[in-house]
C-alpha cells in the first residue's frame, strides 16, 4: 500500500514539475505578453495542483492535507483573477511602448 502511494506521489509530483518546466519554457519562448499569460496561468496552476495531489499521501494528518488543498485553491483563485487583471493591464500597444529594457527588440 505504502509503495503504491509512494509511486503515486512520485508520478504526480514529477508530472507537476514538468508542468512548471513547460510553463517556464512558454514564458521564455512565446512571442508576446498575452500568449505568455495564457500559457502560464494554466501551466503553473496545474503544476502546483499535481504537486499538492502528490504530496497528500505523504502528510500525516487530514488537517495538514486540507491545508495543502487550501493553498492550491487559493493559488488557483488568485492566479485566475490576476491573470485576467494582467491581461487587462496589457494594452495591445504596450509591447511597443516604454518600460523596455535589455536586448530584445
Amino acid at each position, binding site marked *: 500500500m505504502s509503495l503504491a502511494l509512494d509511486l503515486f506521489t512520485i508520478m504526480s509530483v514529477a508530472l507537476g514539475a514538468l508542468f*512548471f*518546466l513547460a510553463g517556464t519554457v512558454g514564458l521564455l519562448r512565446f512571442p508576446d*505578453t498575452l500568449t505568455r499569460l495564457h500559457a502560464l496561468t494554466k501551466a503553473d496552476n496545474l503544476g502546483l495542483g499535481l504537486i499538492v495531489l502528490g504530496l497528500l499521501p505523504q502528510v500525516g494528518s487530514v488537517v495538514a492535507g486540507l491545508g495543502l488543498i487550501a*493553498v492550491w485553491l487559493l*493559488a488557483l483563485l488568485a492566479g485566475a483573477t490576476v491573470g485576467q487583471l*494582467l491581461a487587462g493591464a496589457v494594452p495591445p500597444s504596450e509591447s511597443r511602448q516604454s*518600460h523596455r529594457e535589455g536586448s530584445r527588440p
Partner: protein
Amino acid sequence: MTEFLLAAAVFVLGTVALGLVRILRGPTNADRMLAAQLLGTGGVAALLLLGVATGTSALAEVGLLLALLAAFASVAFVSGATSGGHTTSGGQAARGGEEPGRDAG
C-alpha cells in the same frame, strides 16, 4: 521519498531560476509581473515539497501566506500600472505649487 521530494524541489527551483530571465528581459512590466507570478507559484510548490520532505510544522500556513501575498502584490501592480500614476520621465507627475508648511519661528 525524502530525497525524491527534495530533488523535485531543486527541479522546480531550477525552472524558477530560468523564469527569472523574463524578469531581466521584460520587455514590458506586465511581462515582469507575469514572471513574478510564475515564480510565486513555483516558490509555493518548492516550499511545500521542502516542507513535506523535512517534516516542517505549520507548512500550509506559510504556503497560504505566500499565495495570499503573491495575489496581493499582483493586484497592487495592476492598480499602480493602470491608475495613471505611471510616469515615464522625471518630475512629470509633480504637481508643484503646494504651499510649504509654515516656518516656525
